[in-house]
């Protein structure tokens, strides 16, 4: 059938039960949720308040939701892989090789691009305008478009589970394996279109955040008064703007090779596959810092809040952040010391890499010294932060070991490398996101998360983390290469089994997280935050109500004074208390541009994967039509009247006053 390009009934994996069943279950769940939403009459609300929302807080929450769901999906892959390797000693295990290859590829792809990225971007989106005293981000509609393009990419990867196959070439599709000659099915194409589309979404978000942070800050919010999270978010967004176009270009070249017979990276026609490795890591190394820098910011906020002290060495922290931002762009070659560029080149990049560890060390010392002499409260966000400091130091040190070229020749592409980067990404990024979610959850929803389940989740995660990755370090030192479907070495066996047990500990931690969410929602009345400032925080977002009104701040926060965080917040609350004159506020109107663009991007991407050219053309034409329609519209703002602002603000103040009264009452009676 030419009408549907290469798509036919054979694309559905009728004869491999695992993906079919998994796919069927996922589809059933999706249909059930959709049916519930429609039948319970939630659809209009969802459409009005969330899907078409251009409010940075809503978009941030949607990003985080997407990231969490995708992390669950990626975790399922991890369980499958660890179980396979535990069983596959002198045995084929239960996963056939071509399926195992798809699983490790989709695991890495999903975790980095659709798990970790949406989570960090979601946090940045939610927090930055609140911390810098703004009403909104610079380009609200683009913000929504960026989110929906990311969702498009996630959707495409998951469609490949049921319709066709996913890439078998790893989370970075190295040629020549990913060329048409060696990967003739649609797996790599799914990868390419998912990433090309979501990459544009990420770029849009990066541009938006850079502009927002540099140009939209509240009066008086000078550079050296910005909270640390905003600095790291700025560095991360700058890296997005500088690095993601390289990813787009590289994947576009691979797509040209596959679709139009170009010869960028082929073995024939003079193509140069090492160029792919260079280009992809010129993006890839900055990418790991795009992920981890915002997490560093979260830790800075959390540690200073829960130690009851200003951040130690604020200025050195800013310098270290910018230093990492620049150096991370200059060290990409350490990912392929074994390419054979020669001793001098390798030495240069090895030294450059180690410099990053030095700069990161500055940060670690600052965090520790912030805690020193402070009155530490061990709430869940703080636990994640301390857990991070301990685990990340190990990850950094193994990184420095890998940055020594002779050592890297032994450990490259072994499980030691896998342990290193999981050590940094889980111990850094994932812990950071969990700390951030627990920390800002009350700001977003107006009630805190249940502590007990949060603490349990932390300890199980930490235990699972050690149980999985210490064995992987050992396996790497024992010479086990990454990505093995089965093996014959007796001495590897106990360690792979230990790692499998570890992944089950992770699963328990995950259940704790889900229970925590359910319990917190059910007990939300007793966990309510009436003050807007449940942690006695030190930055501006705690000066407004929880959840904040759509316009964030009723009256402009008065940002003066010296101490970057504390003073600003105090003054902001003060100026909002002395009955400021309320004025009407104009806010951007919700619109469906982002969602519709994402819809047509999905259609186009799917059509390109299956080479249904007419559908792809149709999708593109529709996308252009959306653009014209968006450009043509007139009214994009709606005004919130002064009375409405006053009403909302007074309600918040009354709640705060009530709370204070209740507090002093309990103090009197006890």
């Amino acid at each position: 059938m030419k009408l549907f390009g290469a798509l036919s009934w054979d694309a559905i994996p009728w004869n491999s039960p695992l993906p079919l069943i998994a796919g069927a279950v996922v589809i059933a769940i999706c249909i059930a949720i959709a049916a519930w939403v429609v039948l319970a009459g939630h659809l209009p609300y969802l459409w009005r308040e969330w899907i078409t929302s251009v409010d940075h807080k809503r978009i941030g929450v949607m990003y985080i939701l997407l990231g969490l769901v995708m992390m669950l999906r990626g975790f399922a892959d991890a369980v499958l892989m660890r179980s396979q390797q535990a069983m596959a000693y002198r045995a084929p295990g239960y996963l056939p090789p071509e399926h195992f290859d798809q699983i490790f590829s989709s695991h890495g792809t999903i975790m980095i691009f659709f798990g970790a990225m949406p989570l960090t971007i979601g946090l940045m989106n939610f927090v930055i305008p609140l911390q810098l005293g703004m009403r909104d981000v610079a380009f609200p509609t683009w913000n929504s478009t960026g989110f929906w393009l990311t969702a498009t990419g996630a959707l495409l990867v998951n469609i490949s589970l049921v319709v066709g196959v996913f890439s078998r070439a790893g989370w970075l599709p190295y040629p020549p394996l990913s060329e048409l000659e060696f990967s003739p099915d649609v797996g790599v194409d799914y990868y390419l279109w998912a990433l090309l589309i979501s990459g544009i979404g990420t770029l849009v978000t990066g541009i938006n955040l850079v502009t927002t942070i540099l140009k939209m800050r509240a009066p008086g919010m000078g550079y050296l008064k910005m909270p640390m999270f905003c600095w790291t978010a700025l560095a991360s967004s700058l890296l997005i703007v500088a690095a993601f176009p390289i990813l787009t270009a590289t994947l576009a070249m691979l797509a040209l090779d596959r679709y139009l017979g170009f010869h960028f990276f082929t073995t024939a026609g003079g193509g140069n596959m090492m160029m792919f490795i260079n280009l992809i890591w010129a993006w890839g190394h900055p990418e790991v810092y795009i992920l981890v820098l915002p997490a560093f910011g979260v830790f800075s906020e959390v540690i200073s809040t829960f130690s009851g002290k200003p951040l130690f060495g604020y200025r050195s922290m800013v310098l270290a952040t910018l230093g990492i931002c620049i150096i991370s762009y200059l060290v990409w070659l350490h990912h392929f010391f074994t390419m054979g560029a020669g001793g001098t080149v390798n030495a240069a990049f090895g030294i450059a890499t180690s410099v990053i560890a030095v700069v990161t060390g500055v940060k670690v010392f600052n965090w520790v010294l912030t805690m020193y002499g402070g009155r530490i409260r061990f709430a869940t966000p703080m636990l994640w932060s301390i857990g991070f400091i301990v685990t990340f130091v190990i990850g950094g040190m193994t990184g420095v070991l890998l940055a020594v070229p002779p050592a890297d020749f032994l450990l490259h592409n072994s499980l030691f490398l896998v342990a290193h980067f999981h050590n940094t990404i889980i111990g850094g990024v994932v812990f950071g996101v969990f700390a951030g979610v627990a920390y800002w959850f009350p700001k977003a929803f107006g009630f805190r998360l249940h502590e007990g389940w949060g603490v349990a989740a932390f300890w199980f995660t930490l235990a699972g983390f050690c149980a999985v990755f210490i064995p992987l370090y050992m396996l790497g030192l024992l010479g086990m290469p990454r990505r093995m479907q089965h093996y014959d070495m007796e001495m590897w066996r106990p360690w792979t089994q230990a790692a499998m047990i570890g992944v089950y500990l992770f699963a328990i931690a995950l259940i704790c997280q889900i229970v925590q969410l359910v319990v917190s929602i059910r007990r939300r009345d007793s966990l309510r935050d009436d003050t807007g400032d449940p942690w006695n925080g030190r930055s501006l977002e705690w000066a407004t109500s929880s959840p904040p009104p759509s316009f964030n701040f009723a009256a402009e926060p008065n940002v003066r004074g010296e101490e970057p965080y504390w003073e600003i917040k105090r003054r902001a609350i003060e100026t909002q208390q002395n009955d400021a004159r309320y004025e009407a506020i104009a806010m951007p109107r919700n619109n469906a541009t982002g969602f519709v663009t994402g819809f047509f991007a999905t259609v186009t991407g799917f059509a390109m994967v299956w080479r249904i050219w007419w559908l792809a053309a149709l999708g593109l034409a529709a996308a252009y039509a959306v653009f014209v329609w968006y450009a043509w519209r007139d009214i994009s703002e709606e005004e919130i009247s002064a009375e409405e602002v006053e009403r909302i603000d007074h309600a918040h103040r009354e709640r705060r006053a009530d709370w204070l009264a209740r507090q002093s009452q309990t103090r009197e009676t006890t």
Partner: protein
Amino acid sequence: MTTIEAPALGRPADPYKVHRTEMLATGHGDAGPASTRVVVAFGFWIFLLSDIVMFSAFFAAHAVLQNATDGGPAGRDLFDPTRVAIQTGVLLLSSFTCGVSAVATNARSHVWTQAALLATGLLGAVFLLLEAHEFAGMIASGAGPQRSAFLSSFFALVGLHGAHVGVGLLWLGTMMAQLFVKGFTPILYRLICFNLYWHVLDIIWVAIFTVVYLIGEGR
């Protein structure tokens, strides 16, 4: 940068309003958020910088692959200096007319703005036609992008620039229609952005002209 003035929206000043125009705050934290004009132009600059990064990747690929002709034709066998010179002249001229449109916009002259934009669009179209002619000729003579890695990188880099010009023309068309129907106010910032975009395309072409054609001619 061009100096198209911002429209006055005639609303009371709310320092937090996203689309604030009155004050000339820079956004550096002294006086509050910058005006919409600054925010939009700044954001668009950042976008253009990221676009330049993408071009750099294609330039790098071309630099790596320019000798990888796989026994096929090299630059000196393929390039026609006269056509490239005309293309360059046409594109530079279109940048000039684009600048003229900004001047006309500042003077709020509908006729001159439209005329200058039309000239810009026509020159852009001529540029694209010449490029299409070059591509068609090369493909017909068996020197298409599939022939060698060198030609792949050539077609991708030059074609990417051409695609940008094409997108620019679509954008230009929509703006001219809007200008005709609604007048200046709703699209002033877009005119600023278009000016930036078009001039940057010119700069990139100068790099292509030098790196691809002039140096390639010498090989």
